[in-house]
């Protein structure tokens, strides 16, 4: 137990001092990207903890990105208000979409979340005056200065996403330990049993889904104000599948899974120095390898190397 904590501490210190060690903007950008994906993918894991497979997660990132953009650019709100609102709007859309389909057979959930990714893209594309169409929306302002920190270089963005990721991590750990987390996992293990002891599975599946999409919205909002640009191309079906792949590669069984998965999958293409066109193939190959060789994900690697047979869940 103490060993695990030490490892966490080391990682934390490394992460905190990264911009001090290197001011290379390219490198920082890489880690900022990891942070964005990690935050979003934690949401996927939360949804999966009730046994639901969300195949359109990037759509909720898009909702967050566009909501945040419009709130700051059209409604004049400060980023610091638009950011949490973007998350809540994503949750609300999740509620509206999820409510009718949750009542129906489970497989439809995957289908509709998949289709929803495309629906969002179509809405963005067909409403160009408000949502910018294919070209997207440029010149999105960065966050307003806070505590006299100005968001003019990558470093403040890095610390911001680090803070967001840490907060998300703590939230996820809290859920896992709480009764709510137990309720989620009991629904996943046996929803009939859960129902028979008085758990309203629809309600809790909905809660998990809305919470998961909240974090997607947050990450989308950050995305928009960091890249100063948002476009339907960033949040396609492929990105949604990436969200799923990242959590599986990292390992669904552990809270650290989404972080490991996002980290690994962002760094590998860099390491291989491959062009962007190779991304889908590389990701697919990694996913398939993981599913065959290390089904519990990267988190189970240390145990596997030590020869222990880790029971996957």
């Amino acid at each position: 137990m103490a060993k695990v904590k030490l490892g966490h501490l080391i990682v934390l210190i490394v992460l905190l001092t990264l911009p001090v060690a290197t001011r290379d903007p390219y490198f920082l950008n890489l880690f900022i990207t990891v942070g964005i994906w990690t935050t979003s993918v934690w949401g996927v894991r939360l949804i999966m903890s009730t046994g639901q497979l969300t195949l359109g997660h990037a759509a909720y990132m898009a909702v967050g990105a566009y909501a945040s953009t419009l709130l700051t650019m059209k409604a004049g709100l400060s980023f610091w208000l638009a950011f949490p609102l973007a998350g809540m709007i994503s949750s609300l859309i999740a509620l509206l979409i999820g409510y009718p389909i949750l009542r129906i057979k489970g497989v439809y959930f995957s289908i509709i979340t998949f289709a929803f990714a495309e629906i969002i893209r179509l809405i963005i594309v067909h409403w160009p005056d408000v949502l910018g169409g294919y070209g997207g929306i440029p010149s999105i302002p960065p966050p307003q200065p806070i505590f006299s920190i100005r968001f003019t270089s990558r470093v403040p963005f890095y610390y911001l996403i680090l803070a967001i990721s840490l907060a998300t991590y703590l939230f996820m750990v809290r859920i896992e330990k709480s009764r709510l987390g137990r309720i989620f996992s009991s629904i996943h293990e046996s929803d009939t049993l859960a129902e028979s002891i008085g758990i309203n599975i629809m309600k809790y599946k909905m809660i998990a889904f809305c919470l998961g999409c909240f974090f997607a919205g947050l990450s989308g909002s950050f995305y928009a104000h960091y890249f100063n640009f948002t476009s339907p191309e960033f949040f396609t079906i492929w990105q949604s599948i990436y969200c799923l792949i990242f959590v599986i590669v990292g390992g669904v069984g552990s809270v650290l899974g989404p972080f490991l998965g996002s980290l690994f999958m962002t760094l590998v293409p860099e390491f291989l120095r491959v062009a962007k066109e190779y991304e889908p193939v590389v990701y697919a190959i990694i996913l398939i390898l993981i599913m065959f060789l290390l089904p519990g994900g990267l988190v189970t690697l240390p145990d596997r190397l030590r020869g222990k047979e880790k029971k996957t869940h």
Partner: protein
Amino acid sequence: MDFAFFVQVFINGLMLGLTYVLIASGFSLIYGIMRLLNFAHGEFYMLGAFATYLLSEHLGLDYFTALILSMIIIAGLGMLVYRFFFRPFRDQHDPSLVIALGIAMLIGGLALLIFGEKDKSVSPVVSGVIQILGATLSVERMVVIFSAILLMTALTLFIKFSKTGQAMRAVAQDREAAALQGIGVDSTFMLCMGISSALAGAAGALLAPLFFVNPFLGMHAVLKALVVVVIGGLGSIPGAIAGGLLLGFVESFGTTFLGDITEMMGFVMVMLVLLFRPQGLFGHG
């Protein structure tokens, strides 16, 4: 609008609808028999288009030979994908879905690398026009229509009357019972994948000369398949036929009169179906 125009839009809808039927039937077949949402299904559609493109443009084969050959190749590919990637996860619900998505990405990604992201075109099979009820229609489209009808008829007859077809239906009904009766579940699954993929490939090949071919077709094909099977009923071939034709006509008439917004029509119908008849037109409650 005048009658000739109506005929044109109708035939267009019929053609589109029949291709959707081909794709969706394969998808429904896989779900009905294997209980798998094969998200990689659309990739076989895309490969059908590319295979036809390669065989006819680069090897100079005539179209119909290219079509048949494409179907055979893709059937084989579908069976290989099942044997090496789907079978190990056969009894695990979520991993099956994930591996299907992974394969979809693999095939789509490879196509992207090999063929590049630019659209390719396949030269038309047959040139010429024909007059039906006053409307001028390309023979091309009639070829698609008749080929699709031929394939669907073959499929329906096969499933209804052949021994293998009956075996497939038995497995779809109750896997364990079928196994107890001595039906090879694994070989049934393999055959199912082969047939379904071939149908998807055929759809891709048939439409290739009419539209452009690019590696992103796969996901769009799966989306269409999903829309059709939700409307028609998951696992139902009559549902795939009804849903596919319905979608085809809605899109054809929609694009003519409503323009771009027609893209959303399919999803609107999906929402309506889920609200009022979630099991689809032909699905079971």
